């Protein structure tokens, strides 16, 4: 059941009505039922995997909580312990906790790897809920959150339907601030949430699914779309992925908002970023944060890495020596990021190229600083625009690995940029009417990004006269109905990022 389907709209309508009719303390149970139904409708056998992860992580987390409590008690019991004895007790309990974590991770990451590599099972959202479950487990181990004692409440966190298919990779503490609560009906929540959902529908059905036709044409007739078409393909796929992914997340956040649940933002005007480093703080924010929190920092401060640091400081000097372990940690994390997208050469190459760019930028940092100090015009608006365009160019070029899964072919295409391509414009499969819609839609997305600034656009809109909201609703609704790619002759398109 895709978000952008009649069935889902019906499902949401029923869920919403029931949600606000039933006693508030039962709302989370309704959400769990709805999530189970949603998930089962996407393939019942997948539930086996999801419940498996739920059970193993839930009980591991409870065990961790117990070990933390027991560890603290053991320290308190004996006031007259020496520092070494205390460290010994801490180590003993830490070892038990680490064993618990290692076992749980092996089972769940093993399951994830098996499902993805074998391709035998279609398990909706496995890449996402597995990481979210691991994040929860690590947070319990760190004492950041307490383990959820109720298995069904935990299953709601794991399978919460707006989030299960393509994230965001939620932070357990943050999502559960509102997930289990009692929610009163509010016209503002419904209104702002619905507007956000409509905006997501617009981006997905009107823009992403439309430009998909052109991108498909390029991929299917790849050899005739070489030369300058390579650049056109870059622009088109970037448009498609942006509209598709951010549109899907808009629907996710919008639905949650209608339920009174706050889901964190996953994108923040990523193409305004002046550098690739900044880009990763504004694109797929939750993924970057997850890998930073649960992989990068633990690896870069772990004892073997510290030993390596001592070694590199000694043999490569202070400055270079300090950077080598950090780069190695970063390389490992980026490799894992590529692997998470898919155990294939194109994703890993994509990831390692991002790593290489970040590392090179880091090394060139002193040069950049000197340049910016020397040239006043480097702080000007036009130059900032140039930096954003440069970043957009780089990330768009790398995004092509998504659709050209053969690494040699990817490089072949870029090598052909200055040779002529044989295709003509009409071969892209869209008519002038479609192109106008795409251009207007792109301008609309750009305008929304400009207008929203650092805050929420719907919040600003709600402070304006009522007519403004009405126009926004009506406009978007009409646009989706009139220009949406749906109905007879169209294949409903699932979101791009659900395949990860």
């Amino acid at each position, binding site marked *: 059941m895709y978000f952008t389907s009649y069935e889902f709209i019906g499902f949401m309508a029923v869920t919403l009505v029931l949600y606000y009719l039933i006693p508030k303390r039962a709302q989370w149970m309704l959400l769990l039922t709805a999530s189970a139904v949603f998930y089962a409708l996407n393939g019942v056998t997948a539930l086996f995997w999801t419940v498996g992860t739920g059970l193993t992580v839930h009980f591991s987390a409870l065990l961790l909580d117990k070990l933390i409590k027991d560890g603290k008690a053991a320290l308190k019991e004996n006031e007259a312990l020496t520092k070494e004895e205390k460290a010994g007790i801490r180590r003993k309990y830490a070892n038990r906790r680490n064993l618990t974590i290692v076992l749980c991770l092996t089972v769940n990451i093993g399951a994830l790897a098996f499902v993805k590599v074998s391709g035998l099972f279609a398990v909706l959202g496995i890449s996402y809920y597995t990481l979210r479950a691991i994040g929860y487990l690590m947070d319990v181990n760190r004492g950041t959150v307490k383990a959820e004692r109720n298995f069904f409440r935990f299953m709601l966190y794991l399978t919460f339907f707006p989030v299960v298919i393509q994230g965001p990779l939620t932070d357990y503490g943050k999502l559960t601030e509102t997930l289990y609560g009692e929610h009163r009906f509010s016209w503002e929540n419904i209104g702002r949430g619905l507007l956000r959902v409509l905006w997501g529908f617009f981006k997905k059905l009107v823009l992403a699914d439309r430009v998909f036709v052109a991108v498909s044409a390029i991929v299917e007739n790849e050899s005739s779309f070489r030369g300058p078409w390579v650049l056109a393909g870059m622009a088109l796929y970037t448009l498609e992925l942006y509209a598709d992914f951010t549109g899907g997340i808009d629907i996710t956040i919008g639905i949650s908002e209608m339920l009174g649940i706050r889901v964190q933002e996953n994108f923040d005007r990523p193409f305004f970023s002046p550098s690739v480093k900044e880009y990763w703080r504004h694109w797929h924010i939750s993924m970057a944060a997850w890998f930073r929190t649960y992989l*990068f920092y633990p690896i870069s401060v772990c004892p073997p890495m510290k030993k390596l640091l001592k070694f590199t400081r000694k043999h490569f000097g202070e400055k270079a020596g300090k950077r080598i372990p950090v780069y190695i940690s970063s390389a490992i994390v980026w490799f894992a990021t590529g692997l998470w997208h898919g155990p294939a050469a194109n994703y890993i190459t994509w990831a390692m190229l991002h790593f290489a760019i970040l590392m090179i930028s880091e090394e060139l940092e002193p040069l950049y600083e000197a340049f910016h100090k020397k040239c006043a015009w480097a702080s000007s608006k036009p130059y900032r625009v140039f930096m954003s365009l440069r970043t957009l160019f780089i990330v768009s070029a790398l995004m092509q690995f998504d659709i050209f899964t053969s690494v040699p072919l990817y490089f072949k295409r870029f090598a052909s940029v200055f040779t002529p391509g044989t295709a003509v414009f009409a071969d892209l499969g869209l008519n002038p009417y479609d192109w106008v819609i795409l251009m207007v839609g792109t301008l609309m997305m750009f305008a929304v990004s400009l207008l929203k600034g650092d805050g929420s656009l719907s919040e600003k809109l709600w402070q304006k006269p009522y007519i403004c909201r009405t126009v926004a609703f009506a406009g978007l609704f009409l646009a989706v109905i009139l220009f949406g790619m749906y109905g007879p002759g169209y294949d409903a398109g699932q979101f791009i990022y659900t395949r990860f």
Partner: protein
Amino acid sequence: MDELLNILSELHPDVDFEEEDMLVDDGIIDSFDIVTIVSEIQERMDVVIGAKYITPENFNSAEAIYDLIEQIREEEA
């Protein structure tokens, strides 16, 4: 605190670490910087900051980092 300010200033001499309180949120220090800071703190102040303590809240200002150091010192005592 002085030692900490030294560590921070060596990384970014242009930043006023006594005033700034959005170091992570505003991207003034990045994840590479944080790892360097953590290793310098271990080297020069003999305090081991575990990965679990590396959160935006704990590194958003020099004061927050210092409070974290003190917290860890107390826990180890």
